[in-house]
């Protein structure tokens, strides 16, 4: 039970709270009036970069790219990220904090295509230009989307397969969660590459970017299509699942397997010959070009609405060279 003594303490507390609030308000007014209207010098330019998360090699590479560009252009870069790729609200908070700092430009990898738009448009209204990197958002004031050309990447995968199997035979396609834009684009590019040849495509199946599901789907495929020649799997997590199913049936020599994106484990699978090729994206370029293009814009240059960060076919032939190129951190 609360005593009378504590009750009166409550009033004193409220009084002191009010006092402290007044004190902090005074401070706020005192310091808040400072404004600088001069054009910032080059070295004082600040670019904010907000990633989807910073929990994988991919995002670390984006960060390294942004920092490299900042060194070359002599600007200050702040890289922030919410706690996970699903943390939409946390990402908005990070963007707002950068807007409050009056950064001179923003590069954002949107966790949700729609949620981020009002905040980015607010930045634009306050005179802060922005680009999207890796994952686009359809904001009207966006300078540019800087990311992988997934259609072209899918096409590279298709061309690799056509050549590897001599232009004929049965080919399978496993995709991600139905409706995800990047996976649809990879599929479209892949189908373009197959057009006109005498390749028979088994009906495509989704494996929701899930390794276990990819393993099951592949097992069923190998069972129902014993003369399958090649498979394209639209990300590397699923490619690892598919490769396990192919290994279990002792078929790595017979079935050509191509995945999309790279990870330490999937590159190791390429080295062992369990995955024949990976279509590598360039997360480093996303961060690097994101900052570079913002600086170009601030310098008065024009920036293309769509910038491809590049894709590359990684096979056992160029594996070592590829790994070396991703590890150079100047």
């Amino acid at each position, binding site marked *: *039970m*609360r005593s009378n003594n504590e009750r009166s*303490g*409550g009033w*004193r*507390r*409220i009084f*002191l*709270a009010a006092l*402290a609030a007044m*004190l*902090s308000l005074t*401070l*706020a007014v005192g*310091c*808040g009036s*400072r404004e600088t209207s001069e054009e910032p010098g080059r070295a004082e330019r600040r670019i904010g970069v907000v990633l989807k998360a*910073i929990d994988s090699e991919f995002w670390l590479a984006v960060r390294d790219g942004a920092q490299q560009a900042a060194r070359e252009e002599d600007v200050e870069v*702040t*890289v*922030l*990220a*919410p*706690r*996970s790729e*699903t*943390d*939409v*609200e946390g990402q*908005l*908070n*990070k963007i*707002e*904090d*950068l*807007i*409050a*700092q*009056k950064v001179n430009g923003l590069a954002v990898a949107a966790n*949700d*295509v*729609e*949620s981020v738009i*009002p905040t980015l448009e607010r930045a634009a209204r306050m005179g802060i230009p922005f680009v999207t990197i890796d994952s686009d958002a359809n904001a009207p004031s966006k300078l540019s989307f800087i990311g992988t050309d997934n259609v072209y990447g899918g096409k590279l995968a298709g061309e690799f397969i056509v050549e590897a199997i001599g232009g004929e035979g049965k080919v399978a396609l496993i995709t991600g*969660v139905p*409706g995800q834009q990047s996976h649809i684009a990879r599929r479209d590019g892949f189908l373009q590459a197959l057009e006109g040849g005498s390749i028979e495509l088994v009906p495509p199946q989704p494996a929701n970017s899930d390794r276990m599901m990819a393993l099951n789907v592949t097992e069923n495929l190998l069972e129902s299509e014993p003369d399958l020649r090649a498979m394209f799997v639209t990300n590397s997590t699923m490619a690892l699942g598919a490769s396990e199913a192919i290994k279990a049936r002792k078929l790595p020599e017979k079935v050509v397997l191509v995945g999309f994106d790279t990870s330490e484990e999937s590159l190791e699978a390429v080295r062992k010959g369990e995955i024949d090729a990976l279509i590598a994206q360039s997360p480093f370029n996303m961060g690097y070009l994101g900052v570079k293009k913002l600086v170009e814009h601030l310098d008065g240059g024009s920036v293309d609405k769509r910038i491809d960060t590049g894709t590359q076919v990684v096979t056992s032939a160029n594996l070592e060279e590829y790994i070396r190129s991703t590890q150079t951190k100047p």
Partner: protein
Amino acid sequence: MKQVLFRLWAFIGLVVMCVVLAFLSEDFLTEENLMNVARQATVNAILALGMSFVIISAGIDLSVGSVLAFSGCILALALKQGCHPVVGVLVGLAVGSACGTINGLVITRLRLPPFIATLGMMSMARGLGQIITGGYTVSGLPDQFKVLGSGYVFGDDIPVPVVILLVCAVLAHIVLTHTRLGRYTYAIGGNETAAYLSGINVRAYKTAIYMICGGFAGLAGVISTARVAAGLPTAGLGYELDAIAAVVIGGASLFGGEGTILGAITGALIIGVLKNGLNLMKVSEYWQTFTIGAVIVGAVTVERFRHRR
């Protein structure tokens, strides 16, 4: 005087933090940034209001983050079906309160410890949110509704969520200090057996306490959904821990019987100011996670010290 200082230490801590940040970053004490902090702290502060009732009654509610997501998803689906925004908001509040009531009933009727009962609800509500949305984001919500999350009142100065928070905080303070429900909340938390023996209907009041907590989680779901303009089945992951931290930093005891609304709001603001300040000072996400943990441990240590005197 010393005693008063000790009671107020969380608030003093907040003011000191603000003063230090004002010196470290010239962007901290701008109107734009202070409004950011207020808006960003709102969802956690609203969860902390409900959590205060539960913690003062010597309970715990681990389900608030999931309940936030579940109410947000149902509300978003309702709006997509053409529901009026007002109806949608009521749906969100009702779903939250219903989850809270179930928590209360499981605790008082099935006699499960609050930790287990709400841990179960945490997983069930998360699962239901994913089931009803099929795991997809529910977007394309009406603009009238989004105002609740990203709108402003009083000449584009005060964010709408902050106004909602202030109204709720005053109501919660009045309920906690000036009503029977509030007195009984402290009594149950102080000594449940004594409360029972003195004739308090402990079961009914405890159920009501969890219902209030669920209702605030539903409200937080409404605001969060309006702010991100979408119903996200993955929203609110880990928010329960921030809410518990806010209440504890604000001086409540996890053993019950102690705590105030002013404290909970202060705690939520401390966490909000800390996150914002670390962003302004360009501290990496990894260090931010570490620092918030360290502040919680530090705050509870001071609290212990205060009790030992």
